[in-house]
C-alpha cells in the first residue's frame, strides 16, 4: 500500500480527526495531538503496525514537530509516518509508551534534547544530559554555537577548588 492509500484509508476511517497529507519524499500523516493516541492504537491493533522504529522531534523555530516512524514486523513495505505539531512555547505531545513500550527512551531523549514534554510518559527524566542541566541543547536557540555556552555545575554539587 502506498503512503497515499494508507492516508486515504485512515482519513475515511477517522473523518472527525481532520488528518492532513504531508507531501514529500517520505509522505506523512499530520495528526492533531489530542487524536494521536486513538490513531496510534488503531494502527497497532487493527493495521498491525506493531513496531515503532523511531520517535524524534524537529525544531522549526516557529513550531515543534514530533515524528513517528511505524513499521510492521509481519508485513513488508515502508512505514506509516505520523507528524504531530506542538507549540513553540511549552510544547506538549501525548506519550505513546502505553502503545509501543519501545518509545520510552526515545521520548525521554526528545524531552531531554529538544524539550518536548510527552504527557502520560511513565518516567520522563533526562537520559543523555546530566541531572540538573538546564535547557535543551538541540533547540535552534540554544547557546552553544560559536562558544556562547558557559558551563555551570549541576545544583547540589560543590565546586572543586
Amino acid at each position, binding site marked *: 500500500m502506498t503512503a497515499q492509500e494508507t492516508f486515504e484509508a485512515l482519513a475515511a476511517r477517522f473523518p472527525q480527526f481532520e488528518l492532513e497529507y504531508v507531501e514529500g519524499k517520505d509522505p506523512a500523516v499530520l495528526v492533531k495531538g489530542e487524536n494521536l493516541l486513538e490513531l496510534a492504537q488503531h494502527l497497532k491493533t487493527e493495521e498491525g503496525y506493531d513496531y515503532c522504529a523511531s520517535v524524534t522531534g524537529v*525544531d522549526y523555530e516557529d513550531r515543534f514537530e514530533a515524528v513517528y516512524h511505524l513499521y510492521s*514486523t509481519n508485513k513488508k513495505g515502508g512505514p506509516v509516518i505520523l507528524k504531530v505539531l506542538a507549540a513553540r512555547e511549552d510544547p506538549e505531545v501525548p506519550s505513546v509508551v502505553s502503545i509501543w513500550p519501545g518509545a520510552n527512551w*526515545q521520548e525521554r531523549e526528545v524531552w531531554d534534547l529538544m524539550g518536548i514534554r510527552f504527557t502520560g510518559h511513565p518516567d520522563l527524566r533526562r537520559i543523555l544530559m546530566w541531572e540538573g542541566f538546564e535547557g535543551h*541543547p538541540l533547540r535552534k536557540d540554544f547557546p552553544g554555537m560559536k562558544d556562547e555556552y558557559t558551563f555551570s555545575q549541576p545544583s547540589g554539587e560543590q565546586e572543586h577548588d
Partner: protein
Amino acid sequence: MTELKTDTITVNMGPQHPSTHGVFRLILTLDGETVIDVEPVVGYLHRNHEKIGELNNWIQNTPFTDRLDYISPMSNEFAYVLAVEKLAEIEPPERARYIRIIMVELNRIVNHMIVVGFLLNELGCFFTPMFYCIRWRELVMDLYEMTAGSRMMPNYFWIGGVAADLPPRFLPECKELVAALPGFIDELERLITDSEIVQMRCKNVGVLPPDVAVAYGCTGPLLRASGVPYDIRRAEPYSIYDRFDFDVVVGTVGDVYDRYLVRIEEMRQSVRIVEQALRDLPEGETATPKKRKFMPPEGDVYHRIEAPKGELGFYLVSDGSEQPYRYKIRAPSFVNLQALPYMCKGYKIADVVVNIGSIDITMGEVDR
C-alpha cells in the same frame, strides 16, 4: 526453625566496570543473588553528536558517523550516505553498490566476531576466544586499510559512490579470506557451541519472548533470536540486497545461547553474500562526479539499514543549505538496551553481564 530476615539491597554497578562495554552504569536491586530490578543509566559518553552534525556540512558528516558504532564504521556510513542519496536523488554507479555491499557484510562478520569473543570473556573465559576471533578481524581491517587508508575510521563511503576504487591486491586477498572464513566459523563452533559450561551459562538465560522483543522495539540478532524473522534486508530491501541469495536466521527460545547461534549463522550468511558480490562485481565507475559544495533539496527523509546490531536509521531534514537542518540517528544499541531490565529480572547477578554482552551494545552509539 526461625524465619530468615531478608531484605533487598541496591548495588551500583559501573560506570567504570570492566564488563559494561564502555562507560555505562546499572543500578541493581538484589534479593541475595537474584536480580529484582535493573535501571540502566546512560549518557556518560554523550557529546551531542546530533547538534555537531547540524554544524557540519553534509559531506563532513560521513566520517563523523564512523564514531557512532566504532566496531562497524562501514555500516554507519552506509546508512548515512543512503539517506542523503535518497534526499538528493543520487544513484551511485553499479560497481560502487557492489563494493559497498562487500564492505558492509565484511563489517557484519567483524562485529559478530567481536560479540562472540566478548561473550566468552563475560562468561569468564578471558581473552583466548577473543583474540582467536580478533585475528580474523585483523584480516578484514587489513582489507579496509588497503582500500580506505584507515582501519577503524575508514571514511570510505561518499555521497554518490565510494572514495576510491579497490586496489589490485584487494580482490585476491578478499577471495582468500572469504574462502577461509567458513572453516574458521566451523572451528569456532566446535570449540564453543557444544561446551558444557557455555550451555549451562547461556541456555534459558535472559529469555526474551517474541512479543516482548517487538514491543520494546528490538531489532537485529536480538529480535531474530526470539524467533521473529524480521530482517530489513528482506522486509524493505535497500541498495541491491534484493539481488542476493541469503537466509534470515532465527532462533527459537530467545535466550543468550540463541543470540550466539544466530550471530554465528549470520556470519555464514554474510560470507555467502560477499561471495556473490565478488562474483558479480561489475567494472566501471565508482563514484558520481564529486561536488565541492553539496546542497540537497529541501525535504525530510528517513532511511534505515540492517546494521550488525539492528535497525540503524537516519532521519534527515534539509532546508536546502550546506548543513543538515536536523540530523537524527536511530541507534540500534540505544533502543535494544531498553530490553535489558526485562531480560535480567529473576536471574542471577552473574547473568546481568552475560545479558549485556548478548544484546551487543556500543556506548558510542547509545550515548551519541
